[in-house]
């Protein structure tokens, strides 16, 4: 069960999630401080640890559009957030899967800030409103990366196989 801590509209870009002026900061251990940096209140709550791990961002279509910057995924992963949206931009979705950030494609999702969501294998239940919404499973090729614990362990196994 996770609480919706932020509700966003369509076309939220990676400039929005992780503004370009912080791009010199690259390490996943350092990027969480600049998460939604231009939304000063939300950013302050994150930095003050007022947002519990497993909290949910509900967004609109095309979340993560724009730049390929991986910081946009690592900054959210650093706070253990889950993103539920009707659709994601391609590079962002791949980065999220590669880093183990949980993303749920849920075309009909309806939720408000403060609602409690139960995220299942093929649906999202809004416990507060009592409504259930179907979600789309990840394509098999991507699920394999998730199952391996992210792209680093997945690629590590292939590198070892290649060397032997």
């Amino acid at each position, binding site marked *: 069960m996770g609480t919706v801590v932020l509700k966003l509209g369509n076309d939220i*870009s990676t400039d929005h999630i992780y503004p370009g002026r912080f791009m010199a900061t690259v390490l996943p251990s350092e990027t969480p401080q600049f998460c939604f940096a231009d939304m000063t209140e939300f950013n302050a709550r994150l930095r003050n640890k007022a947002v519990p791990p497993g909290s949910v961002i509900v967004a609109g279509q095309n979340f993560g559009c724009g730049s*390929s910057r*991986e910081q946009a995924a690592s900054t959210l992963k650093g706070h253990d957030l889950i993103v539920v949206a009707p659709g994601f931009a391609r590079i962002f979705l791949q980065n999220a899967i590669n880093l183990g950030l949980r993303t749920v494609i849920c075309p009909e999702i309806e939720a408000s800030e403060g609602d409690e969501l139960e995220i299942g294998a093929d649906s999202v239940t809004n416990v507060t409103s009592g409504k259930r919404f179907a979600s789309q499973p990840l394509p098999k090729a991507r699920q394999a990366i998730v199952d391996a614990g992210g792209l*680093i362990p997945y*690629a590590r196994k292939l590198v070892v196989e*290649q*060397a032997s």
Partner: protein
Amino acid sequence: MGMTIVQKILARAAGRSSVAIGDVVEPRVDLAMSHENAALVINQFHEIYKGTGLEPHLWDPDRIAIIFDHRVPAESSKTATNQKKIRDFVAKHGIGRFHDLRGDEGGICHQILPESGYVLPGRVVVGTDSHTTSHGALGAFAFGVGATEMAAVWALGRVLNVEVPDTIKVVVDGTLPATVLPKDLILHLIGRISAEGANFKVIEFHGDTIERMSTSGRLTLCNMSVEAGATSGIVPPDAETVRYLREEAGVSDEVDLTGPDAGASYSETIEINAADLAPQLACPHTVDHVKPVVDVAGRKVDQIVIGSCTNGRLDDLEVAAGIVKGKRLAKHVRMLVFPASWRIYKEAMRLGYLSELIDAGAVVMNPGCGCCLGVHQGALGDGEVALSTTNRNFKGRMGNPNSEVYLCSPAVAAASALTGVITDPRG
């Protein structure tokens, strides 16, 4: 069933006779490009090898390109230190295609790749930059990846888990009116299909307008295809591609001109009559918020930007210089010009474009990304309006969430610089 050009490229790169849309393949990579974000790629590359007892090993240092462009010269000690780490890594591993901040070889990655002859038709190009789509202008399948995905490419030489994408066919016929440029065409298309209209798909460009278009214009189209969500844009290679490669990129190798099959299947076909197009603007704060310039004409602007990987090439500077030549910019306007590479800078200097721009009041900056992404140089003040030939206008893109960015062609930018308000270049 016939194949699209990207299906053919992926089949070859995966060692198969054919691939169907939705198949998962692992194509071999011909060129892997990064810029300053190579600092993160290097970190993730070392992570992959952690605990394996193996020495980190690049699959092919000659197929890796690293270009410094995003923050040159370094705007902070942090960037400078990252750049130093990358230089050390490049030297240690013998990376062949490294372009540092230098007048004899530097510039924006999406200009350096084509002009150096690194991109050939039929090849697979990946880059840790979303505008890697640009290189489809030369008939390559070129797409953006994240840093960790690139680290896996550095180690393995192939991209893992690529789904063969569906393709939208865009057919453009007719002659573009005077001062209506490829930028207006791509803005129109993005406005028409929306910022997610081509998500997970490729845009294949056809039609006589495209056949007559220079590689520079094709680079503008493919560059901005990602703003409609496309995995890549691509132009089937033709005589113009060969001309560009021979005359401008110094390529003497044989060039493969394979195009799509006549019976290829497309998710949809979009037809555009070039003669109907007018100058376009992408209004704040999304690239698909597109309107004809006439609808917004008269809006006061503070800063004009000409440059970037989208419109910082010689023909763009020629258009801008031609408009401002012998005139002066409006008093309250500042105009920043960023040529896309030092080669273009020198050529524009030789042809007199730079002095024409400077005499009018423009400031010519060093080639690089400059203010395109709001990291350094040319930030906007609260409440200010910029008119820019770059490719993104998201809130805060030019360093200030309390400012507005309109995107346009170099002709609209230059005409507006003279009046100080958004102006239709057709007069």
